[in-house]
């Protein structure tokens, strides 16, 4: 290769118009330029995440151990008193609130995953030609305003003069004016709204797994004499477990920090952990204690992510991941 000596310099300096006789640059030099140029492009997005997300989280951590404070006249020295109070203080109300939230979250996650499975199964094995369109029908409400849907539930459907109670009265199933009290501001309403909000989203990963399943495996099971139910129990369902777990995590993680639904449909006893954090930075600004709760929430979610994360798509972790879905 006669041209090999020249472009070392040419490539390093200004981008040049191809000279006659140098129409093709040697690939070795190009590879070097690509590597330097491309990798650095992750820096701006990385910088913004560090500034807007990691920075605040670190600052919250400092507040939680009293190295910073917003309360005038208090000294700032390292102290784990707030953490100790939250984690081990007898009958700590915030810890109680945390476990109440976790209970609701787990209940919602399990219920949505179970309810979404038949939906995904229908789309993958019954809907056939229109499955993507029907999938969209299922997901469409998810892309409309979350807050508006909650307002519809709380102010129109579930309230005391709401659609459900009015319907019960009209059908003479209950005495007029005597509505079902547990419809709103209750555990039921929190559960219902969260269940409603997440089920479209949860059916997605299950559908993706069922859709990409090797149909020859179920055929083989049938050929070997397995009934439909046995085939499902021993082949289809075990193979779909990664999707089921992904679905479970998809709802578990966002609902762990939920605080909007309780503002509308929760009574004073049904507020979630997120609402406690909110009030520490709003009504009664004690940022040091609030920071403990905010950091604890992040830690819990990160731990959940580490435990379940390996079941999620590996698409991004490997350089050449397989594609899921279409």
């Amino acid at each position, binding site marked *: 290769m006669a041209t090999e000596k020249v472009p070392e310099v040419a490539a390093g300096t200004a981008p040049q118009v191809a000279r006659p006789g140098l129409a093709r640059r040697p690939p070795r030099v190009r590879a070097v330029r690509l590597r330097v140029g491309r990798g650095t492009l992750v820096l701006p997005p990385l910088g913004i995440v560090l500034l807007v*997300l990691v920075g605040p989280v670190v600052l919250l951590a400092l507040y939680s151990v009293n190295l910073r404070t917003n309360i005038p006249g208090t000294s700032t020295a390292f102290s784990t008193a707030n953490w100790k109070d939250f984690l081990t203080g007898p009958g700590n109300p915030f810890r109680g609130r945390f476990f109440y939230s976790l209970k609701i979250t787990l209940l919602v996650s399990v219920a949505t995953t179970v309810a979404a499975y038949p939906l995904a199964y*229908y789309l993958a094995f019954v809907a056939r030609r229109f499955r993507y369109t029907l999938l969209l029908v299922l997901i469409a409400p998810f892309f409309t305003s979350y807050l508006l849907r909650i307002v519809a539930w709380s102010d129109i459907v579930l309230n005391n003069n709401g659609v459900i109670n009015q319907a019960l009265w009209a059908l003479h199933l209950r005495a007029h004016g005597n509505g079902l009290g547990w419809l709103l501001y209750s555990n039921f309403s929190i559960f219902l709204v969260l269940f409603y909000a997440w089920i479209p989203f949860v059916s997605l990963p299950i559908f993706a797994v069922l859709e990409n399943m090797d149909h020859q495996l179920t055929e083989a099971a049938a050929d070997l004499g397995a009934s439909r139910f046995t085939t499902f129990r021993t082949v289809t369902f075990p193979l779909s477990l990664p999707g089921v777990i992904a679905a479970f995590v998809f709802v578990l993680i966002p609902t762990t920090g939920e605080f909007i639904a309780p503002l509308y449909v929760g009574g004073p006893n049904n507020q979630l952990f997120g609402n406690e*954090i909110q009030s520490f930075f709003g009504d009664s600004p004690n940022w040091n204690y609030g920071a403990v709760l905010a950091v604890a929430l992040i830690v819990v979610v990160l731990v959940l992510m580490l435990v379940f994360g390996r079941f999620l798509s590996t698409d991004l972790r490997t350089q050449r991941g397989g*594609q899921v879905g279409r």
Partner: protein
Amino acid sequence: MRPNWLGRAALTAYFWAFAAFLFFPLAVLVIFAFNQSMTPTLPITGFTTHWFHQAFSDTELLGAVVRSIEIGAATGLFATALGIMASIGLSARRLRLRALIVAVLLLPLVVPYISLAVGMLVLLNQAGLQISLWAVFGGHVVIAMPFAVLVVLPRLRSLDPAMIEAARDLGSNEVTAFGLVTLPLLMPSLVSSFLICFITSFDEFAIASFLAPPGQPTFPVFLYTGSRAPGLLPELIAVGSLIIVGSLGVIALAEGGRRWAERRLRGITAEAAEALTDSGVPALQI
């Protein structure tokens, strides 16, 4: 495995019952937008478009909607641009600390919005800055960017490297090749990314409720405070029903576009296969 007829019937019924459940609150909202009564309760007293007129003359409400659209559009553009950068960066053949970089870029997906919101509030305070719509915008860009990466990166990986190499061989430099070849090929994913980031921002409440200054609420913040005032509820329902019908319309349009493109593509490949068969090439399986 395809279930037998009984199973198919049961699953079909289950699916449509769920679809009804999912659309029920949306339908209720749209119906009550036209109800005459001040309170959204049955029985429906009569048909009126009064609440729409009232909503369109409420400058505070309109201001909040416009504010949310502006922040949403800016978030969509900015987060998508960052998503492109991150995707190209991650597609580099060699990248040090790749796993760590991916983890940091996707961190906004797992950090609860409420923790991020109060953290940003504390950071602004520490830096001696006031809460502002710029801070809301910054927060929205960060929470939307992972979605942009998740949409754009798979598309970028599916591109045939030969096309970009061809552009380079024909004399374009890396930037021109990107603008003329890569970017147009990425376009469908960029549109999806913009829409998803827009919706993420338009619908976001936690960050906006802490960082939007008083008197400059975004639509979700206005909706939250407004729905506490009984007099405002009917016009909020009216605007809300417009937003819902609008977003469902966009989704239907996008799906229509996808089906149209798919049919056209199938038509073209079928034609090509036919032409090949006619010219004596053995039938291709498509």
